[in-house]
């Protein structure tokens, strides 16, 4: 059984239909990379998966729990789906440690000692144990994003959604974040990553999904998508984006 099933998601903002029937499945341990032009619904798709944005139509399952079901405990579901934002969204008033510890303390109900140990372990995992006492404003963008990944990891999620995690970063800081993500993928974390980093997509993705105008145009292995896409539009986009962003992860 797939870990995540998305079925026929629709979302409309005013007159604009941002998602026009998106379906996909993610199996445990898979890294799925979603690419596509801006304004194509990629971020909306991620937000509809844990219902940070309410989809108009369609269904989402995490394991055998229907996320979109009426009686679903949404907070519990969300605690099992990590979310990494483009602009980090670390809690401004909390140190790195407290950012990571808040969920374990308040959602998982761990004791302070246990929550602290877990948070410190996750900070160490992203290479920031020495920054535990720093406030977000005292960290570089790359460090902030790594803390936000640690915040997601501390909930021990079944799946992490990355919404353009490196798009707000200065070029020299992108590598450290991608490095953490590569490591997570290798460790078997299940991830959906919306990104323009084609090097990452090519080397880490198990499957690449190309979205445009609210629908999935094509999906397949990086091999297939880069070498011999079935849809001409996929090839065009990949060529263009690779020129723009380069190919190195």
């Amino acid at each position, binding site marked *: 059984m797939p870990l995540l099933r998305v079925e026929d998601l629709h979302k409309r903002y005013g007159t604009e239909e941002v998602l026009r029937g998106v379906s996909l499945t993610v199996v445990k341990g898979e890294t799925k990379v979603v690419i596509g032009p801006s304004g194509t619904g990629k971020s909306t798709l991620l937000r509809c998966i844990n219902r940070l944005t309410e989809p108009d139509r369609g269904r989402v399952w995490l394991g055998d729990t229907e996320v979109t079901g009426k009686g679903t405990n949404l907070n519990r579901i969300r605690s099992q789906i990590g979310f990494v*934002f483009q602009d980090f969204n670390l809690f401004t008033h909390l140190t790195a440690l407290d950012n990571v510890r808040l969920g374990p303390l308040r959602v998982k109900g761990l004791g302070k000692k246990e929550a602290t140990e877990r948070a410190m372990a996750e900070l160490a995992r992203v290479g920031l144990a020495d920054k535990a006492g720093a406030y977000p404003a005292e960290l570089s963008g790359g460090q902030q994003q790594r803390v936000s990944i640690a915040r997601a990891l501390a909930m021990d999620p079944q799946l992490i959604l990355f919404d353009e995690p490196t798009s707000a970063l200065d070029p020299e800081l992108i590598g450290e974040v991608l490095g953490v993500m590569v490591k997570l993928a290798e460790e078997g974390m299940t991830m959906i990553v919306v990104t323009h980093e084609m090097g990452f997509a090519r080397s880490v993705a198990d499957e690449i999904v190309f979205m445009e105008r609210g629908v999935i145009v094509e999906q397949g292995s990086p091999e297939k998508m880069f070498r011999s896409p079935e849809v001409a539009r996929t090839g065009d986009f990949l060529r263009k984006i690779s020129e723009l962003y380069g190919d190195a992860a």
Partner: protein
Amino acid sequence: MNLVFDWAWLPQLGRGLVLTVELTAACMALGALGGLVLALLRVYARGWLSPLYALASAYVHLFRGTPLLVQLMIVHFGLPNVGIVFTPFVSGLVAMALNTAAYQAEYFRGAIQSVKAGQMMAARSVGLTRLQAIRHVIIPQALRLVIPPWSNELIYMLKYSSIVYMVGAADLMGVGRTIAAKNFRFLELFLVVAAIYLAVVLLLTLTMRWVEKRLRVPGLGTSGRGA
């Protein structure tokens, strides 16, 4: 010109000052509590809670839209007509707390709304309930942002508490006026009263500046500092 000052007036003025400070502290505390609740309702009460939003909004408009002095007169001289009688101190406290709650609600609302939208979204993405997110993420940030306008309100209320002498309270202003009338030394007494208010205001200003500095967090600045 011949100014006369009797040191024996000071202890009496001191007792008046104590009442002024008590009154201000109590009304600010009650106002903060009420103001925070009103602000939360104004920002978050939607859907089936929207009647509460409407009530909170009506309250704020009513109490900001009428003079504090009129509110005080209604409480002290009006309510006895329906059998509710307060001492001058309590009348002052009730009117001032009701009034400042409305103003503080607006300051809190501004602070809550200036917390970035991503903060709530991130909190929900971790699995916090809306209430938990408000309590652990939004309010701690809003309280820091509200300190400067709140300090203004504190100073404002300290000074405007002087109107309670009109209902017979023995606050700093009331005591000063009584002594002045007894001795026909209006200029001296009111100058001294003014100086005492000024001294307390300066003390409060410095205190609040210290509080703001103590609670400051990098990146959560007001007036562009530390951003």
